[in-house]
């Protein structure tokens, strides 16, 4: 489940990045907005300018032409209140009638701070009085009580920072909460998908955010299970069929072998007849081996051969196989030499005795089958690093590099799903390989030093 922490990291990174981006975006928009408001933000300045431009002459106060025009165009009115008389001594033509013409000190304070008849007013000091500009209604919003506690302003940076921090923490919590809910529903789905290839039966609870996915996974698992059951059934049927055929062939073959064996050693029969009987005996023997091999190979292939591994002395087991062959090989056409080091008397491995005997027996039989004219067979057990090894070699006809390559790398017809007429070699080596594999080992085919055939079974020593 390495993917979950990765997912969480990814979520948090995305969340932080999006928060920062939102902040940057907000500040940028604010700055743009404020800068667009800049031209309107100087009514006090305009009032001061008007006060400065106001001229005194014999005929009274007057404004230069262009300033007056500007005020008029902006729909701004203006008055001048005399310092001494507190009376309006000058006004623009567009002054509304509702604006008073005399003022008290409190009126002045009021209009400075706020409005006259809802017109936002701004003041500028002229030579002998106060210029008041009245902007159109609703053009400005004035702070009526524009005073702040000193500490509030002094602590503003800290306040902003803490508010920001609280905001981020809040966003983070919301994010974690929603994501953890999502993760809770994702986790079983992920583990379900991960265990699909292990061929186990899977059932995920079909609720939560991703219940539809869970349903699909459960269905997939069911399909896989039923497929593997079907396959297993077919394999069992095939292995049983092979076992049945090989069972049924044994009794008739007993008759053939038994009577041919009797004829072979019957002195009353002429020699050429006995030679023919001997051929029948030999060929029946081959059928017998084939039947045995076929049965075992199919059981090993479909994992139906029960394995009884025990810690055993491989040297003793192989020695017994060799002795059994020597005791049976009456004509001595295939003398077997035991070339195991005398110092090696014990090599313990976790093995099924009968299967290992079968494998070594197959190899020795193989040497005999491929060298009808006779050959020496060399059997050796070795202990090397963490392995026990059995080497069966001969000095017979041998095998080409190409054939070695083929035997080592192309599948046997029994376990191959293609038509491979060029690979019809015996089952003997396949069984040796299967037995080695069932013990966690391998079988390697090669050439012996004397140019013959050589097979090496390598079995791991128990730890």
């Amino acid at each position: 489940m390495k993917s979950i922490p990765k997912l969480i990291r990814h979520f948090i990174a995305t969340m932080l990045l999006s928060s920062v981006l939102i902040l940057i975006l907000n500040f940028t928009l604010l700055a743009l907005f404020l800068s667009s408001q800049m031209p309107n933000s100087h009514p006090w300045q305009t009032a001061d300018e008007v006060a400065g431009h106001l001229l005194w002459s014999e005929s009274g106060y007057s404004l230069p032409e262009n300033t007056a025009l500007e005020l008029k165009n902006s729909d701004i009115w203006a008055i001048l209140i005399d310092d001494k008389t507190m009376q309006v001594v000058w006004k623009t033509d567009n002054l509304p009638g509702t604006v008073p013409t005399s003022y008290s000190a409190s009126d002045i304070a009021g209009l400075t701070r706020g409005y006259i008849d809802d017109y936002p007013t701004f003041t500028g000091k002229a030579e002998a009085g106060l210029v008041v500009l009245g902007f159109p209604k609703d053009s400005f919003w004035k702070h009526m009580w524009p005073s702040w506690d000193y500490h509030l302003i002094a602590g503003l940076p800290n306040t902003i920072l803490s508010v920001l921090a609280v905001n981020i923490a809040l966003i983070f919590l919301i994010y974690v909460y929603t994501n953890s809910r999502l993760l809770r529903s994702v986790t079983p789905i992920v583990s379900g998908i991960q265990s699909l290839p292990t061929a186990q039966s899977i059932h995920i609870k079909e609720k939560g955010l991703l219940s539809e996915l869970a349903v699909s996974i459960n269905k997939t698992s069911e399909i896989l299970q039923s497929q593997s059951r079907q396959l297993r059934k077919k394999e069992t049927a095939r292995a049983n069929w092979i076992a049945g055929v090989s069972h049924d062939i044994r009794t008739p073959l007993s008759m053939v072998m038994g009577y041919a064996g009797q004829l072979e050693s019957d002195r009353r029969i002429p020699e050429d007849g006995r030679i023919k009987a001997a051929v029948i005996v030999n060929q029946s023997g081959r059928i017998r081996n084939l039947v045995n091999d076929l049965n075992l190979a199919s059981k090993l292939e479909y994992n139906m051969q029960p394995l009884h591994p025990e810690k055993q002395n491989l040297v003793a087991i192989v020695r017994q196989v060799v002795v059994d062959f020597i005791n049976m090989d009456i004509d001595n056409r295939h003398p077997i030499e035991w070339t195991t080091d005398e110092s090696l008397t014990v090599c313990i491995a976790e093995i099924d005795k009968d299967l290992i005997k079968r494998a070594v027996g197959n190899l020795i039989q193989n040497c005999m089958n491929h060298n009808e004219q006779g050959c020496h067979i060399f059997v050796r057990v070795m202990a090397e690093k963490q392995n026990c090894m059995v080497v069966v070699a001969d000095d017979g006809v041998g095998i080409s590099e190409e054939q070695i390559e083929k035997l080592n790398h192309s599948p046997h017809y029994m376990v191959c799903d293609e038509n491979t007429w060029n690979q019809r070699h015996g089952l003997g080596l396949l069984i040796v390989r299967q037995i080695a594999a069932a013990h966690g080992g391998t079988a390697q085919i090669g050439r012996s030093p004397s140019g013959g055939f050589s097979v090496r079974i390598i079995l791991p020593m128990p730890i």
Partner: protein
Amino acid sequence: MSLEYLKQKRILLVDDEQELLNLVVSILNEDGFWNIQTAKTAKEAIAISETYHPELAILDVMLPDGSGFGLMERLKSNSDYPVLFLTACGEDGDKFRGFGLGADDYMVKPFLPKELLFRIHAILRRSYKEENPLVRLSGSEIDFDRAEVVKNGEHLSLTAKEYEILSVLYRNAGRIVTIDALCEAAWGDNPFGYENSLMAHIRRIREKIEGNPSHPVSLITVKGLGYKLIVEGR
């Protein structure tokens, strides 16, 4: 050494195939066994055994009216004698070991006459060895009853280990017996590291049985593999 007394043994043969019965009877007759009764069902076999008192039973595993294992139990409950199974099931080796039923041996069909005869001889020798006469070697005789060797009129007694080793070699006379099988016979299961002790015992046995222990002719070493006992007249 004479094996004639073994040929007198009463043998009960049970198989549902008449052809197979004929074959085995023919093989046994040719080898000199003549006291043979056959049965095709378990019921028949039990009936015969009550009057015939067999000394060896050769049984098929699958019979029309039951399994050979059950039949063996019935037969052995009356009188204990060796049983050899002849089976067409390739995997019966497992069953025998698993059930521990007390069969003396089993053979998987098909078989060669000489294989069958070898097993029968081995079982009979093992089961009825008290009837053994003296075992004649090239330079001496072994008397297993008295656990002694008679060489040049001199009686040399065998120790327990020497007796065990010689018994195994004699049962497999003319054939190689592995070092491991001999150690197992003398020291029990998983006998690792007894090779040197075995060699010492073999040397002492040779001193008792061989005319010239330095040049053994009866107890022969097969280098790296084991030993072979050569018995006269076999």
